[in-house]
């Protein structure tokens, strides 16, 4: 046999057994929380026209998209994330709707990352998008705070308790850049250095550009303005321009709402939190926890995205990379005894009909039961061992005389003896 057929390509993998149980449980908890906040599930295609994820709209570099052609020669791409697809849906199906639309999603996304960096190319993302609604400042404060409240609630529902959501506002840096009169290329370069917290890189760029020292101070301090809400007050002293001030006021308002919601413990601020992409228009945020080297939730406001699809509406959303959250929770040991709750009923050949009826009776009581004909030449101990290997909870053996010895495999100290002896009549009557 060719052993190559057993391998999966680099960057994708099989998930099975209790790992998949944990992942599904996590996804269910997240989706349930999204649902409880009124976000409706939406499903979009795995691949779409390339233009939907193009440079102007998406945040994934063209050379990292999986691209291919349809029979007519159109370029198609596997989705690298959900946001453009959902924006497209909102524009297509709800063009006239001017009250808010709340969508949630969960599915796999594909990014063709560099080899040998240990990164997955197929990852599961779960997230929400809140599109449309009140376009005023007050409306945005309310929407931002509510979405952040959902973010905190979702991570808590997943079972996480030690996490921090760091919030920034791109308006702050934009205001500074405008005031200092930075050219767009320089602004991009400065933004990148700030996103790397590279104080010296920022200093170098600013000094080279010949901006006067007083104005430059805001930029230099930007890499240090992070921490609790006091950094917002700190920042206020450094700036004079209206746009930056407005950005700070916005963050302060969001903060006081979140304090009232009881989320204050999980909230911090980072004015140097900026995105490499010119995609976000207001607040942006990332959540961090121990045990994983990257953010476990990312999001922000992107008010100009919908206009790419012809609908003028504000929007905010976030995404949770489920695989990263899962590995963080694994390393924090937050899963307890996640065994499969499946029972196995094996039966002797003469009992075919009774076995299915007995299994149906057990299912009615709420159990998940697999039925299987007792294989000739196997010992009951073979089935007990099989049960342990495959995380079976209970093993029923229906013998030809109508007796059902029951083995409890969830018990960690097995002695190989049945814990219970049922009669067929106990389950299906005479």
């Amino acid at each position, binding site marked *: 046999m060719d052993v190559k057929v057993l391998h999966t390509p680099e960057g994708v993998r099989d998930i099975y057994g209790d790992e998949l149980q944990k992942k599904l449980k996590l996804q269910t908890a997240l989706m349930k929380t999204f649902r409880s906040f009124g976000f409706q599930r939406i499903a979009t295609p795995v691949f779409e026209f390339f233009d939907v994820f193009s440079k102007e709209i998406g945040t994934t570099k063209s050379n990292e998209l999986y691209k291919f052609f349809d029979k007519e020669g159109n370029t198609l791409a596997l989705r690298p994330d959900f946001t453009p697809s959902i924006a497209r849906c909102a524009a297509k199906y709800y063009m006239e709707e001017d009250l808010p639309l709340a969508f949630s999603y969960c599915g796999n996304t594909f990014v063709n990352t560099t080899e040998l960096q240990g990164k997955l190319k197929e990852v599961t993302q779960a997230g929400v998008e809140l599109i449309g609604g009140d376009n005023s400042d007050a409306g945005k404060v309310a929407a931002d705070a509510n979405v952040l409240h959902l973010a905190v609630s979702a991570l808590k529902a997943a079972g996480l308790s*030690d996490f921090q959501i760091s919030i920034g506002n791109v308006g702050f840096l934009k205001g500074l850049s405008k005031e200092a009169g930075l050219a767009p290329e320089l602004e991009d370069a400065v933004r990148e250095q700030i996103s790397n917290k*590279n*104080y*010296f890189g920022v200093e170098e760029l600013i000094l080279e550009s010949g901006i006067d020292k007083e104005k430059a101070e805001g930029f230099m301090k930007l890499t240090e303005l*992070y921490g609790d809400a006091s950094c917002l007050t700190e920042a206020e002293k450094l700036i004079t321009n209206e746009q930056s001030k407005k950005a700070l006021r916005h963050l302060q308002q969001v903060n006081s709402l979140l304090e009232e919601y009881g989320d204050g413990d999980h909230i911090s601020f980072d004015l140097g939190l900026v995105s490499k992409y010119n995609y976000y228009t207001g607040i942006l945020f990332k959540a961090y926890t121990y045990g994983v*080297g990257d*953010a476990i939730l990312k999001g922000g406001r992107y008010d100009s995205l919908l206009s790419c699809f012809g609908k003028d509406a504000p929007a905010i959303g976030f995404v949770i990379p489920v695989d990263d959250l899962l590995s963080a929770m694994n390393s924090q040991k937050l899963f307890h005894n996640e065994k499969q709750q499946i029972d196995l009923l094996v039966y002797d050949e003469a009992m075919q009909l009774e076995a299915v009826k007995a299994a149906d009776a057990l299912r009615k009581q709420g159990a998940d039961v697999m039925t299987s004909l007792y294989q000739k030449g196997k010992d009951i101990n073979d089935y007990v061992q099989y049960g342990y290997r495959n995380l079976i909870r209970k093993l029923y053996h229906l013998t030809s005389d109508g007796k059902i010895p029951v083995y409890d495999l969830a018990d960690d100290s097995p002695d190989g003896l049945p814990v219970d002896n049922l009669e067929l009549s106990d389950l299906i009557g005479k």
Partner: protein
Amino acid sequence: MSNNDRYLTFALGKGRLANKTLSLLEQIGITCEEMKDKDSRKLIFVNEEQKLRFFLAKGPDVPTYVEYGVADIGVVGKDTILEEQRRAYEVLDLGFGKCRMCVCGPASAKDLLQHHEMIRVASKYPNIAKDYFYNKKFQTVDIIKLNGSVELGPIVGLSDVIVDIVETGSTLRENGLEVLEEVCPLSARMIVNQVSMKLEAERIRKLICDLKSVI
């Protein structure tokens, strides 16, 4: 969130860089006696009192350890940061290990850099070379990755020029090569994992502040 019981882990690039980093850390009261024992075959060194751990790694691997968060802090040359393109915060220029990344070659190769003609470039740093020629000079080049003694490239005729680190330039001169263009200045940098920067904000901020005062 308080995490007093959590260790802060440093990944240091082996060699001179690690020694200089340790003496710098000593100046701000961070020591690791275990590491001074030259005969030790240990891979990880611990300072129980200050809850610190140190390990030595090959330079190019330091950003990898930091990106994955298995080290909170790394010290590594700017060349490695540029070449590896890992996600980490670059928070401090430690000021030592100063040198330059340069395009070098025989004087006759100078002309080849003036036009957009296709040339061959040998380098240990293919990503840096590519970025410089493609995005800054808009020159299409053929890049050949070498693993050492890059100066050989133009001498034996493998490449037209090289992109390499220049400290004093004596190796170049002895081999009839010279600096043709400077790509960027280099020095040792401190990098920090993005998550650690948030979750260990106070400890790391203090460390950066202390280091700034002695640099």
